[in-house]
């Protein structure tokens, strides 16, 4: 089969696929300078740790040396005597409130299985006690003097072992809530089936494989950090490196039994999160120390603590069984995912559901679909949100299996995908059946540029010519090509909500206050661009302030690829309200009808050419006539989650002597609708792809047989540097999403899903061996090559 439109759809439907409305955007879809980049490039003190607070105490946490144990005795007397020590906390003197640390909408879909401190420890690196002291040295000395006796319990590290009858029960506490089957360590479970006939009846072939991913850490370069202090009214102020300031306020209030009104959460600049900061990780314990001492307290993780005691990606085993016909029709799909959620069930249900809800609808399955998901407790570090959020685990399986299926029927893998991916106007029963933690929302695809993305990628990597050249490769170094396609979402439909406020100033500038949380992504900038586009001004005319629970309106925070789509729509609506208010004032100044006025170039302009400046409008409203503040707020809540789509391509060279895979070229084509700021969108994708390449070739957090992490440092957990990186080319494929602000969809997560399957497929193309568990280290590749050679 050659290029051209996929055979399974009518030409007219295909032609509509790229729906780029002719646009004449002035600010949106332009390379506007990221507004915080000047301060950041100059090293201005903008991060959580960059303030000096008088009388601040240093908080330190005592970590469990055991994977599973009960604290039988804990004596803090000696620790309290250390000069400078102001407080020592154990489970005995903090409130016991079961809660989740997952920063999600309320009521959270994660089980309430966590306590500020408990009399039981559930992994090596779990909290035992906390100290606040005048110096870090005093705090560390005190930790050593806490006398703890443990009853060591049998531990379990494997999810399948943990589900067996008689396995150690990790959450045997009576007051935990929403654990579906604590006795079998099941933190979350979800099943779903669409049945249109007998299973695999129409299939010419049935293929089944299991795909595994290990413990992976986010490695944001800024470690987790929080400073808690008090305002002049005695309210608790939490300055924290978080993706979810409003959820932090709510969960800290819950855990410490405080009224929400007694807490203010401030998010300064954040040094990267990637999901690890969608979590209440330190805020509760620092707040407890501040409340105990009446003093400001700072807790900052070391890099080692970040690896062990923050959050990780959920290690996964995905069993995928697919039935398909000789003509390329996929008839049946059965996906069974088991996630390791570690000692606590943070994001246990939702990551598991997204592994299916973001992947299964991507290809049309004619007859039957079954999904079974379980998230299982083990005595290992706690998993949580991580860029890709389950879709990464799911697409490794799906996109590897697509190549295996194509090979089985002798079809080109690119054509096989083109034939089967979801089209414009199509839906899937999965959208409705599987949401995040609950039933989803019915939706159809309203924008998709995947066909063009695939074509662009094939050309950019020179697919056809290289395929020809690589044929019958001989020698030690073999080259291969692989590709993978994928989608993600744009926010959680009918769950996520964002809001914004815009206030006009005398000089025609505006304050834009958003709950949306810029964690380094550039969301402050793109939200200003959206507002500026509506109001006919420049992005620089906005002073953006984000994520302060006292001063900005609510937003769920930065996760689920929601900010551009949901917060962006909230900002657009807010700006439209402000535009109406400006026009009302200008109509009086200019003595023209409102409907004859428009905002453009920093002015209000009438159809007949009469005009007035925005500062005149502002001054009139503030000082001269019908005095009022031009200010508005609006919220947005979406009923759909339009997926971005991507096609990724990898060219690899495999050293058959050593097993080393070298990625020679990587091309990633992304349809994110209108890129509000193309440069920032590219940057999001570049970073996501390189993170995914790290997952593919080197990253894995390893453990000893008693659950102790073995490589919790940058020296031993290998992330990619400038010399390791392959050339990565990101191409943005413009489409227009009718539900998005100025046609935009999300872009931040999707790129991380591509490298694992694309490289797995390229490896197979190069040397004819397939790996089902990441990372693809030289040892594994070499062993697979040797095994294949023996057959």
């Amino acid at each position, binding site marked *: 089969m050659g290029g051209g439109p996929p055979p399974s759809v009518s030409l007219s439907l295909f032609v509509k696929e790229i729906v780029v409305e002719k646009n004449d955007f002035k600010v949106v879809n332009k390379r506007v*300078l990221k507004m915080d*980049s000047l301060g950041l*490039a100059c090293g201005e003190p903008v991060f959580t740790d960059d303030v000096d607070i008088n009388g601040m105490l240093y908080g330190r946490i005592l970590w469990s040396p055991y994977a599973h144990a009960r604290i039988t005795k804990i004596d803090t007397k000696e620790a309290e005597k250390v000069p400078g020590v102001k407080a020592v906390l154990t489970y005995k003197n903090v409130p016991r409130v079961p809660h989740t640390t997952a920063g999600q909408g309320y009521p959270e879909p994660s089980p309430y299985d966590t306590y500020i401190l408990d009399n039981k420890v559930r992994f090596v690196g779990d909290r035992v006690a906390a100290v606040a002291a005048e110096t870090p040295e005093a705090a560390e000395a005190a930790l050593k003097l806490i006398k703890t006796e443990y009853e060591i319990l049998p531990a379990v590290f494997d999810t399948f072992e943990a589900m067996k009858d008689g396995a150690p029960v990790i959450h045997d506490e009576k007051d935990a809530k929403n654990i579906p089957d604590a006795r079998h360590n099941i933190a979350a479970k979800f099943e779903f089936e669409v049945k249109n006939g007998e299973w695999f009846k129409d299939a010419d072939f049935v293929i089944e494989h299991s795909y595994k991913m290990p413990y992976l850490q986010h490695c944001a370069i800024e470690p987790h950090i929080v400073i808690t202090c008090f305002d002049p009214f005695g309210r608790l102020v939490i300055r924290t490196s978080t993706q979810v300031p409003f959820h932090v306020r709510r969960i800290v209030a819950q855990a410490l039994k405080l009224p929400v009104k007694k807490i203010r959460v401030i998010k300064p600049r954040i040094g990267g999160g990637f999901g690890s900061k969608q979590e209440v990780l330190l805020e509760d314990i620092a707040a407890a120390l501040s409340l105990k001492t009446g003093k400001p307290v700072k807790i900052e993780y070391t890099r080692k603590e970040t690896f062990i005691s923050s959050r990780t990606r959920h290690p996964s085993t995905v069993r995928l069984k697919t039935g398909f016909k000789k003509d390329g029709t996929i008839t049946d799909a059965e996906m069974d995912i088991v996630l390791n959620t570690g000692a606590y069930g943070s994001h246990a249900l939702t990551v598991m559901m997204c592994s299916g809800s973001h992947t299964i609808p991507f290809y049309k399955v004619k007859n039957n679909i079954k999904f079974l998901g379980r998230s299982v407790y083990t005595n290992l570090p706690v998993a949580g949100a991580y860029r890709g959020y389950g879709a990464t685990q799911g697409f490794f399986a799906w996109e590897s299996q697509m190549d295996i299926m194509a090979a089985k029927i002798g079809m080109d893998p690119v054509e096989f995908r083109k034939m089967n991916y979801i089209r414009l106007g199509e839906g899937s029963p999965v959208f409705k059946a599987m949401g995040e933690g609950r039933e989803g929302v019915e939706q159809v695809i309203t924008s998709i540029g995947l066909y063009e993305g695939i074509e662009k990628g094939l050309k950019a990597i020179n697919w056809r010519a290289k395929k020809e050249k690589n044929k019958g490769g001989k020698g030690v170094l073999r080259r291969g090509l692989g590709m993978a396609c994928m989608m993600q979402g744009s926010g959680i439909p009918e769950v996520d909500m964002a809001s914004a406020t815009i206030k006009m100033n005398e000089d025609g500038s505006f304050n834009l206050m958003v709950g949306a949380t810029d964690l380094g992504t550039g969301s402050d900038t793109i939200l200003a661009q959206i507002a500026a586009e509506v109001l006919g001004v420049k992005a620089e005319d906005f002073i953006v302030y984000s994520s302060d629970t006292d001063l900005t309106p609510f937003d769920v925070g930065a996760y689920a690829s929601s900010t551009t789509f949901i917060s962006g729509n909230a900002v657009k609506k807010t700006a439209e309200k402000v535009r109406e208010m400006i026009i009302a004032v200008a109509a009086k100044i200019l003595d023209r009808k409102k409907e004859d006025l428009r905002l453009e170039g920093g002015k209000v302009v009438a159809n007949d050419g009469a005009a007035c400046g925005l500062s005149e409008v502002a001054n009139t409203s503030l000082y001269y006539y019908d005095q009022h503040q031009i200010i508005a707020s609006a919220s947005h809540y979406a009923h759909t989650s339009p997926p971005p789509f991507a096609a990724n391509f990898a060219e690899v060279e495999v050293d058959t002597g050593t097993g080393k895979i070298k990625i020679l070229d990587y091309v990633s084509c992304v349809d994110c609708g209108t890129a509000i700021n193309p440069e*920032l969108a590219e*940057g999001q994708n570049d*970073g996501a792809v390189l*993170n995914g390449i790290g997952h593919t070739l080197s990253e894995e957090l390893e453990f000893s047989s008693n659950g102790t992490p073995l490589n919790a440092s*940058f020296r031993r957990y290998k992330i990619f540097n400038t010399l390791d*990186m392959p050339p990565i080319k990101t191409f943005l494929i413009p489409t227009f999403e009718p539900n998005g602000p100025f046609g935009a969809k999300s872009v931040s997560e999707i790129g991380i899903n591509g490298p694992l399957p694309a490289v797995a497929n390229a490896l197979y193309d190069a040397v004819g061996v397939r790996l089902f568990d990441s990372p693809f280290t030289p040892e594994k590749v070499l062993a697979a090559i040797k095994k294949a050679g023996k057959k």
Partner: protein
Amino acid sequence: MLNAIFKLKCTVNGVKIERDLDSSRTLLEFIRVDLGLKGTKEGCGEGECGSCLVLVDGKAVNSCLMMAVQLQGRELTTIEGLKGREGGLHPLQKTFMEEGAVQCGFCIPGAIIAAEALLRENPRATSEDIKRGLTGNFCRCTGYEKILSAVEKSKSCR
């Protein structure tokens, strides 16, 4: 835990200073705590990530691995001390902004210092030299593409 007090004389960002110093201080602690210069970051504390890079006598060093007392008689330049020709923005700071190389920005002061050390020594650094020169600076946001192009672009405006 009393540590010896050390009399440190050195130059910080072009200004000669004298300080009584706790001799157990790392250079990074001295910069962030004693001097209050917050542009230099701690990302790992073990010399792996490069967020704490500073120039000592023009050479890039991980300030978390050097003791402050080793600064005696030497010249320290932090990100706050980098200036352009007329005292304005340094060319690297400008190109990092223009190329969109700044995402979260936490690693950027270190990356700029690494690039500055490299380009002082070799103003005609090739793209391969630049990759090698920045190999000690981890960035988890950008995938490095835009950082490398920012360094490349800055060569022509030094």
